[in-house]
């Protein structure tokens, strides 16, 4: 038998019998301590009620007197299969925060539903919250079957409601069990009163729940919890969140991005050779890097995102509302970051699952929200990572929590392992047959004022007149929209080129001729764009000497660059790397623009024709 206790939360609407069901499960598996049943009998008699099993968990006087669970409790029992830690969550709306606190520790849930009432408000709320807390596997118990005369039709109806609910909220229903918790039918023993039920008892269904899987091949992350000093040596301590850390590993310290090297793992009384996920460990880094509590040590091969803003799903538990513009402190991993609610995209309606408009976060409801970070946050978009889950503090207290859905960020470029490219059912041949030509990217690069935009418009007009499907992505145009968040730092320029390359690739995939007019001074960035659409990328060097370009200065930019008003202006104060092997070169300084345009049109009509060979070999023309 495994010694590890499997944690299961019992959730559902108030008065549907959760505490009684838990107590029955413990009693019938022999888990009641000596004397406890007598104690409960006395406590029941004192209140003039029949034996109340729920008093096993409802230990507070006020809970017993009012017959309602106020706060979550835990008990342990054993099946023939394994040990269980049962978390009994309160079902009253007033105590959702306690239910949420309890459920965060669970690996699976038992949703208890009264056969008479069926799926009710808190059943729905819990079903919506559980997946947000990382609980996906669920068993539904349709309780109090005696009150509906053990009618199979009633069970089927409630089971149907439960299935619909699970489908909507993302819970995975492992079993649906009819039961009478008070008497024990369907809990551990099958009982004789529901012979029509062919599925498992609750205990059988629990024993069939899968153990948690831990992803093995994930990059190492160590959220730094604190930094201790021992004999003048700084030791970063924390719990390895994912992956494995070993002495000798290279790591990156976030958010600074500084690279370092693990000289030594440190633990008392002896250090392990390797620290797998879950290990509390100390680390001595090479040199004296600047590392602080709240930093993250990460595998340099794949680092978490550093976020300026986040799209999150959040459940709010605070008494005070949280409105757009309000400030909260976010704790994510071991890091505290100030956040401002930038906007509230939607509330998730508990009853219907629909997204509806919301003004502010209200207690016990679930929302989709954008948070703007006042300092960088270090996050993952996988809920399995502790960097993917957060709590929001208002003052001293936790007001809510949630999961990171997306990083809203210029720098975030790591694709999530959960995202897999989907192949379209319409292939390139069928698209080519429809349009009469193949999709392609025609990439015009050259100095500012070399004539790229002019040629692009000419090409677009000519192709369109010929019935082709084509569109121009112009550098200035995309900067007003798609890339409106980017500036002119080296990094932002690279990102500008990358995005245009990706978008052009999508146009080409759709069968269109994407015409890009972009300075794109770095050869490496253009090569990256080429890699997006192998075989369909046509690099066109729009050549013009600098004197000609300066003389044209269509936008007055050269003049401003010389005046020092524009930093790092390509051709003046920043380098331009001419293509080494472009598919086509057109020289606008030496030939009339009409000739250049005609040559370009002819080239594209040739290479993108339906019977053309794939591009690759340079077809240089002067």
């Amino acid at each position, binding site marked *: 038998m495994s010694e*590890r206790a499997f944690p299961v939360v019992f959730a559902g609407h108030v008065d549907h019998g959760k505490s009684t069901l838990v107590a029955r499960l413990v009693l019938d598996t022999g888990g009641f301590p*000596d004397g406890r049943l007598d104690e409960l009998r*006395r406590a029941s008699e004192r209140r003039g009620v029949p034996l109340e099993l729920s008093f096993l968990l409802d230990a507070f006087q006020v809970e017993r007197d009012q017959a309602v669970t106020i706060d979550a*409790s835990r008990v342990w029992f054993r099946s023939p299969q394994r040990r269980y*830690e049962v978390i009994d969550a309160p079902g009253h709306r007033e105590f959702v*925060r306690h239910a949420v606190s309890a459920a965060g520790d669970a690996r699976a849930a038992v949703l208890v539903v009264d056969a008479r009432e069926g799926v009710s408000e808190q059943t729905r709320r819990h079903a919506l919250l559980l997946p947000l807390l990382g609980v996906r596997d669920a068993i539904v118990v349709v309780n109090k079957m005696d009150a509906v005369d053990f009618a199979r039709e009633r069970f089927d109806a409630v089971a149907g409601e439960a299935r619909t609910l699970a489908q909507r909220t993302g819970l995975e229903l492992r079993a649906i069990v009819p039961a009478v918790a008070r008497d024990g039918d369907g809990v551990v023993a099958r009982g004789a009163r529901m012979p029509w039920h062919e599925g498992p008892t609750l205990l059988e269904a629990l024993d069939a729940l899968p153990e948690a899987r831990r992803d093995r091949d994930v990059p190492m992350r160590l959220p730094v919890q*604190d930094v201790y000093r021992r004999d003048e040596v700084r030791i970063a301590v924390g719990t390895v969140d994912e992956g494995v850390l070993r002495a000798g590993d290279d790591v990156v310290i976030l958010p600074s991005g500084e690279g370092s090297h693990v000289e030594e793992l440190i633990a008392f009384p002896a250090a392990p050779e390797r620290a*797998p996920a879950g290990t509390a460990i100390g680390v001595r880094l090479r040199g004296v890097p600047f590392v602080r509590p709240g930093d993250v040590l990460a595998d340099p091969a794949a680092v978490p995102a550093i976020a300026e803003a986040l799209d999150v799903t959040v459940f709010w538990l605070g008494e005070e509302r949280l409105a757009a513009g309000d400030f909260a402190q976010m704790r994510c991993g071991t890091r505290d970051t100030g956040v401002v609610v930038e906007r509230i995209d939607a509330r998730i309606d508990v009853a219907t699952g629909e997204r509806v408009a919301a003004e502010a976060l209200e207690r016990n409801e679930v929302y989709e929200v954008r948070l703007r970070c006042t300092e960088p946050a270090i996050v993952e978009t996988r809920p399995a990572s502790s960097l993917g889950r957060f709590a929001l503090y208002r003052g001293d*207290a936790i007001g809510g929590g949630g999961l990171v859905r997306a990083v809203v960020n210029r720098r975030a470029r790591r694709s999530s392992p959960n995202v897999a490219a989907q192949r379209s059912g319409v292939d390139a041949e069928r698209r080519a047959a429809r349009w009469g030509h193949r999709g392609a990217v025609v990439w015009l690069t050259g100095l500012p004022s070399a004539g790229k935009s002019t040629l692009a418009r000419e090409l677009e007009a000519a192709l369109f007149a010929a019935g082709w499907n084509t569109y121009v992505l112009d550098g200035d145009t995309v900067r007003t929209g798609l890339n409106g968040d980017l500036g002119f730092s080296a990094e932002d320029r690279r990102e500008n080129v990358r995005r245009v390359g990706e978008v052009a690739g999508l146009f080409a995939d759709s069968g269109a001729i994407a015409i890009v007019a972009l300075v794109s001074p770095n050869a490496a960035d253009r090569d990256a764009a080429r890699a997006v659409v192998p075989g369909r990328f046509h690099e066109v060097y729009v050549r013009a000497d600098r004197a000609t370009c300066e003389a044209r200065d269509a936008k007055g930019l050269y003049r401003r660059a010389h005046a020092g008003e524009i930093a790092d202006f390509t051709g003046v104060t920043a380098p331009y790397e001419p293509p080494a092997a472009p598919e086509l070169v057109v020289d606008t300084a030496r030939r009339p623009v009409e000739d250049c345009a005609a040559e370009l049109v002819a080239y594209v009509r040739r290479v993108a024709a339906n019977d053309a060979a794939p591009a690759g070999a340079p077809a240089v023309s002067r």
Partner: protein
Amino acid sequence: MSDLDELEERAIFVLREAYRRVAPLGMLWSIGKDSTALLWLARKAFLGRVPFPVSLLDTGLEFPEVYAFRDEMIAAWGLEYRNEACPGEAEVDQTLPPAGRAAARKTEGLKQLVRRERWKGVILGIRRDEQATRAKDRVFSPRREDGSWDFRDQPPELWDYYRTAVPDGAHLRIHPLLHWTELDVWRYTQREGIPFCPLYLARDGRRFRSLGESNITFPIASEAATLDALIAELEATTAPERAGRAMDHESEDAFERLRAAGYM
């Protein structure tokens, strides 16, 4: 990782979180198995030393073996130990049943300790499986200025995120062993080779399963003279751990009243 590894890592995380975020910080050491295992965990968390003072709430009524074990451990582990003499029995609530008065003395002792030291956090070795009201407590559990526990309105705790700050005058009770069971503590004690008070092992057919004041704590019948035998006994038993602690059983709400008033 084994189940004991997981419990250990979580306890260390909580200890480090307390040390990082709550100051000044102290720890209660009853000299029993739980808080001694917790001291060992603190040495692990802080790489060999315990960086905060540890106190016994001393009623003067502990068993002699307990005091002897305490003195050994202070020397062996280099602990910063502060004995806290509890107020006399005459100074506590006289409506409490007699066995509850020792607990009330400790409650008062803890209050005076926290007030004098201005502790914002007190680390304790209580566990959920000991007692049904402890089962409902939090890992970081706020106490009001008078030390009382507002169990009707406990703050949320999400995953590893806790409430780590409280208003002036109030303090936090920090419970790194909350998720452990009695058997977990003994298996861990065995695995790690943690010293423990010899009264837990059987002598002449009797041993103490839980240690409290000598006048209100009673041994159980047991032949478990070794740690292996003790663990085997616990794996088979259905008797509750605190059956020998008279203070729990004088009335249905005895323990709840004690805890609401600030008992551990």
